[in-house]
């Protein structure tokens, strides 16, 4: 469904991604883990069109999408839940959910999708009229995912969903991720905390200093020598 080939992202002279090639098949949950500064967010932002691609290619459903604007990628079926959630704090919870559907043309189906999001995250239902800025971190994360779902993405990119959340809330977020796959959404999750991401995903890529250093299923990776090192970033410092 998605394939990147030798993808590079630079900020000025700083190399954020140094040639990343990965593939995601339809209905897979794939996670990318790695230490802070490994380039995980850059990877998702490049796929979502937020940051420019320096070189390499991104293919989505067989078409090159590098350089496409984010608002157009949403229309093609790619949604990003960014790190820090970025909910619109001055808009109500209901407005935040509904704005996720601006790219859609099938106006009639939107109400049903709003109901599905509220069924998935019942805490949001009680707060529909409140400004979203008043929600707790966990509620904001659910809202950010719900908002992304209103675009009916075929590929959902989620950046650090567990960051700053209590373990119980993290479980709820990951339960939602599992439900989404059952509905046919393909998911790419980026996490710094490896355990959850490893368990939830079919396959995991380990990213360090802008390159993929390891890939495989949870069991494979755990068995692999040097996994811990790579994860904690020691390997990255070796030339």
């Amino acid at each position, binding site marked *: 469904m998605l394939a990147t080939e030798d993808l590079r992202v630079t900020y000025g002279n700083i190399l954020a991604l140094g040639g990343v090639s990965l593939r995601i098949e339809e209905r897979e949950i794939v996670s990318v883990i790695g230490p802070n500064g490994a380039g995980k967010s850059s990877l998702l932002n490049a796929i979502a069109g*937020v940051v420019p691609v320096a070189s390499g290619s991104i293919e989505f459903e067989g078409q090159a999408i590098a350089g496409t604007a984010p*608002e157009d990628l949403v*229309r093609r079926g790619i949604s990003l839940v*960014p790190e820090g959630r*970025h909910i619109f704090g001055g*808009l109500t919870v209901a407005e935040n959910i509904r704005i996720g559907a*601006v790219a*859609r043309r099938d106006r009639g189906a939107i109400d049903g999708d709003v109901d599905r999001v509220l069924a998935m995250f019942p805490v949001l239902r009680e707060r529909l009229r409140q400004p979203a800025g008043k929600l707790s971190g966990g509620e904001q994360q659910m809202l950010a995912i719900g908002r992304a779902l209103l675009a009916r993405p075929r590929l959902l990119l989620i950046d650090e969903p567990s960051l700053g959340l209590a373990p119980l809330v993290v479980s709820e977020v990951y339960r939602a991720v599992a439900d989404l796959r059952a509905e046919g959404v393909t998911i790419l999750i980026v996490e710094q905390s490896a355990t959850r991401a490893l368990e939830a995903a079919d396959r995991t890529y380990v990213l360090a200093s802008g390159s993929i250093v390891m890939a495989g299923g949870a069991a494979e990776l755990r068995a692999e020598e040097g996994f811990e090192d790579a994860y904690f970033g020691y390997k990255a410092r070796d030339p």
Partner: protein
Amino acid sequence: MTFVLQNIVDAISLGALYALTALGIGLIFGIMRLINFAHGELIMLGAYALFFTFGMHEAIMGLVAMALVIATAIVMERVAFRPLRRANPATLLIASFALAYFLQHLVLLIFGARPKSVTFLHELSGFFVVEGLRIPKLQVVTIAITIVLLVGLVVFFRRSSIGTQMRAAAEDFGMARLVGVRANSVIAIAFLLSGVLAGIISLLYVVQTGTLTPRMGVSLVLVAFVATVIGGMGSLVGAAVGGLVVGVLTVALQAVLTVELRPYRDAFVFAVLIGFLLVRPQGLLRGRSARERI
């Protein structure tokens, strides 16, 4: 008593004019972080359009002026600001100055530097007399139009889809694009709305003063800019309130100052504003878009 009431009406109508100008500036700032100093030239162009079409039916004069101002606002965005959208706010600000000077000198070239005068909607220069109070019709109209526009804008931003999209974009433009809000559309609509506001101010301004110069927009936009700062950058309600406050302050000083000091009224206005900003630099209402993100 009459004196006080008279001044209150004066204050509100001047404040309304400032509020509308400040809203036009605040709208663009909220979305683009651009302080568009060329907004004053939109107002000036509208006034010259009335001068140019003078003699035609007044409805046509008004429509031509509105159309010219709105079209200029949209073209301004497309030609001058869109190519700079990724530039930093300082570059955008300089571009807006350049545009302002360009438009001033264009008008100077065509119409010359001498002030022009034009009569428009002369019937509004009369008074309503209520209980010995002489209220200029124009002030009543100005206040009424301002209220209608404010209510209209609130309904637009709260109820319409594109209005919600604009609020979202004003808060977090990058995220708005990620959910599918089209950057070009919301910015173009923001300029269109700022053009509508500027056009209406053109009409009201010409009815009031009847004189026009190529630089007539400069002081108005400066005052309106101050009003947006007072109100809180990035807050539309703040911009409207700020405009009202500056208008009220101006009229109050006009009434309170002695005859010798009156020529320096604006110096007093700005002194009060500087004092205010020292105490409350974030403005009366802090705009959400000006807040740090967590």
